[in-house]
């Protein structure tokens, strides 16, 4: 905050100068980001590097832009060193910056040594030499000269290499001992990505006027880009699957209003049927309402997988929630800090980090032989419940801890017993947090593949839903006059994440669209749990802060 006022006071002292610097360096930052973005598009072949644009190619344009940025940064640094701009450079570029720039020049030296000079074993010497010089320049020279020179020359060099076509369409390099061949289609975008970031960082440093303020601006540019990258990652993963999966998922949906009979009855005295008719909504969504068609040309569906996932989640929640909430209650309300609580804490965290495939192995060795010696829904429910347990314990505990002690004291002062207090005061107060934790946990186990792969699934393309409940409640003539439905959890079933794995395992081929559709449904199911969990957490936290 204090620096803003300080800078405005310098602005009034030297008008004009710093605004030119800000204008030029701001332009260079923008140009760097443009190169970065185009490089990203080129890397993913949306805009291949050899695409012709206005008489030249994307590759050449990228090289030109980087050349401009590199030159501009060096010139700005020199101008600042020469006193043309009012800046506050430090006497050194700083150790962190020097290491960063040194690493860049190390890479340049290594690549030149290995590729251009063809040194198979001596390239580290060249790399260390260039890296050392690059770092030393940034470290020893005054900040505005050292950092801009070292980083700017790197950008300039990258630009020149690309603009001259040294690395361009047609360039190929197969590094020794690596089974990979780099081509211009990948090399140019990668150079643009790196040099673009370095250019943006250096130009932002100039924009901030060097010194602490400049370093801050430079660092914020990089950190902000990283955060934007994470957002872009989320959007592109979800968006890509949505685009590819929407068609297959919604294929063959039929719906409409039909005129049909609502109900009919035969009133006494009148010897005719009275039929009440009206519009009936009819909806048919084959992808989620059907199984995999074994014969014929029907639309393949994933209903068995959806039903399997529902059963797995229900069972896991029924097992883990009472255990987890109970454990959290005991730890916060009854237990004193001591050896027992730390043992429980260590095992809870241990369970949290235990890999899912290890849970699967455990289920395979422990539950499967004891539960009918077959892969079964029940084994999957137990194993997933075990995976859910630590999540429930950790989040419930957090939530219980945040219940103010005044609540407990007030209840105790009324002469209410401890368990009664917990039941009627503590638990209700912490319920939002507990439920949020459970929802997030469900999101995690609903997408878990490895354990159910080992203990629950058998048929990769099920046509039929696992019939867990057979028969219904009905009255019978024999004692006890009612028949309850048969619940059979000891049978194998599919599940959404397994369905996706099974398609991949069977070779995608003609099932590619089916796989994208499955991926989209899985993502929708899991993400909606996460969205609800995250949103409710934000909502309740905001309510708590009020």
């Amino acid at each position, binding site marked *: 905050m204090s620096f803003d006022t300080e800078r405005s006071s310098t602005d009034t002292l030297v008008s004009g100068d710093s605004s030119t610097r800000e204008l030029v360096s701001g332009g260079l930052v923008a140009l760097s980001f443009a190169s970065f973005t185009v490089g990203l598009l080129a890397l993913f072949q949306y805009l291949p590097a050899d695409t012709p644009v206005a008489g030249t190619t994307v590759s050449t344009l990228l090289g030109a832009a980087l050349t401009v940025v590199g030159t501009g940064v060096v010139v700005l640094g020199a101008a600042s060193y020469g006193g043309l701009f009012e800046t506050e450079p430090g006497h050194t570029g700083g150790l962190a910056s020097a290491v960063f720039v040194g690493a860049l020049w190390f890479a340049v030296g290594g690549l030149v040594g290995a590729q251009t000079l063809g040194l198979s074993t001596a390239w580290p010497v060249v790399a260390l030499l260039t890296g050392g010089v690059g770092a030393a320049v940034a470290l020893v020279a005054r900040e505005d000269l050292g950092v801009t020179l070292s980083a700017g020359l790197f950008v300039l060099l990258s630009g020149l290499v690309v603009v001259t076509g040294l690395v361009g369409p047609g360039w190929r390099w197969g590094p020794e001992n690596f089974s990979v061949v780099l081509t211009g289609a990948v090399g140019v975008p990668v150079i643009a990505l790196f040099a673009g970031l370095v250019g943006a960082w250096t130009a932002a440093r100039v924009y901030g006027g060097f010194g602490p303020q400049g370093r*801050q601006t430079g660092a914020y540019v990089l950190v902000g880009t990283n955060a934007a990258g994470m957002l872009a990652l989320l959007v592109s993963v979800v968006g890509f699957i949505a685009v590819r999966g929407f068609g297959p998922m919604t294929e063959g949906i039929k719906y409409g209003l039909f005129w049909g009979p609502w109900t009919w009855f035969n009133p006494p005295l009148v010897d005719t049927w009275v039929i009440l008719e009206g519009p009936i909504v009819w909806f048919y969504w084959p992808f989620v309402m059907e199984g995999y068609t074994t014969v014929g040309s029907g639309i393949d569906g994933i209903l068995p997988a959806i039903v399997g996932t529902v059963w797995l989640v229900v069972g896991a929640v029924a097992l883990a929630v009472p255990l987890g909430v109970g454990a959290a209650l005991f*730890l916060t309300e009854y237990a004193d800090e001591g050896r027992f609580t730390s043992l429980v804490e260590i095992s809870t965290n241990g*369970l949290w980090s235990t*890999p899912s495939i290890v849970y699967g192995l455990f289920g395979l060795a422990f539950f499967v032989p004891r539960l009918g010696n077959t892969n079964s829904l029940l084994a999957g429910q137990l194993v997933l419940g075990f995976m859910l347990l630590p999540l429930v314990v950790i989040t419930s505990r957090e939530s219980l801890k945040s219940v103010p002690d005044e609540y407990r004291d007030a209840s105790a002062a009324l002469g209410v017993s401890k368990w009664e207090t917990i039941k009627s005061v503590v638990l209700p107060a912490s319920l939002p947090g507990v439920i949020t934790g459970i929802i997030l946990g469900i999101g995690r186990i609903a997408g878990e*593949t490895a354990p159910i792969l080992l203990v629950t699934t058998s048929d990769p393309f099920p046509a039929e839903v696992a019939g867990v409940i057979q028969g219904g409640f009905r009255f019978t003539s024999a004692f006890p006059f009612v028949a309850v439905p048969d619940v059979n959890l000891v049978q194998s079933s599919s599940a959404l994440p397994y369905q996706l794995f099974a398609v991949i395992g069977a070779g995608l081929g003609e099932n590619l669209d089916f796989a994208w559709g499955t991926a989209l449904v899985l993502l929708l199911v899991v993400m909606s749990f996460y969205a609800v969990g995250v949103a409710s957490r934000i909502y309740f936290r905001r309510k708590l802060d009020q």
Partner: protein
Amino acid sequence: MSVATRLGGLDRNSRIVGGIGTVLLTLTILSFLVAPALTGYLAVAFALFVAGSYVVDEENTARFLLFVTTTSTVLILAFITVYLLVNAVPVVREMGLYLLVGSDPFWDTSANTYSLVPMMWGTFVTTIIAALVAAPLGVAGAVFISEIAPGWAREIVKPAVEMLAGIPSIVYGFIGYTLINPFMQGELSLPDYGSLFVTGLVIGIMALPTVVSVAEDAIASVPDAMKNGAGALGATDWQTTTSVTLPAAFSGISAAVLLGVGRAVGETMAATVILGNVTNLPDPLMDVFGNTITLTSLIASQYGAASGLQFSALFAAGVVLFVTVMGFSIGSQLIERRMRQRLGGEQ
């Protein structure tokens, strides 16, 4: 304090409830181990006893039940450990140290020779690549959320990172399999379908949200007084971050990275789907664009056809995984405990 004096501290009712309840529950669990057919009856007996005792003495029964649920995490972890170890014993007895240091042939089911070296190498390389991706980007993300972002940006990025944690691993694997693998083969002329490099990259992205969330907690737990002190001395926000906040939160951040690395070690489906799962070392060894197998993908890709010694070898792989991840987990907890002590109290 001995058990006897502890029990002495409880009154007579709670001793009766706890004693009978514990016996019944122990019987139930034991019966599941040796005679699963009896378990149902014993469980019903336990439930009836608990219900009855809840009617008579609500307070003590509730306390006993909550205690039982608390021991469940410890019990489950103990069962997992025991069953992994017991099932791994045959292969350890047969192969001995060859399991960990053996050379060619590494994994030959016809000769019943098993060595986990390629799998451990695969896990090691993918984890290193994943850590190189997840650690710097994750810490930068955490710094952004807790120190740099203006309010509106935080409201977007933080939930987005949490949503990112929700994308199932098989979906990442599917994307790697259908998009990145063909890309690497087409544009970079990789000889095989799948490589350690792509696997490590994808796993790193998957471990990213864990690192961000835990590191953000650590950074947020640095007391405001420390940061304000730096600000009062005229430091910029970034100077405060690098010279006060990050050093103070250093142990918490390392715990976050350790947890992220632990996640990366145990990641199964992405590795199974993306890698070629050949049970040999890449040639040459350092070729990160080569193909091999990880401990996790070994289990996921071979459990179906395995029996006898091979089955036991899969459990040995599970033991190696389990021990590694436990090490990371306990290490990160120790670091976190030290951090809490250093920052003083529950701040």
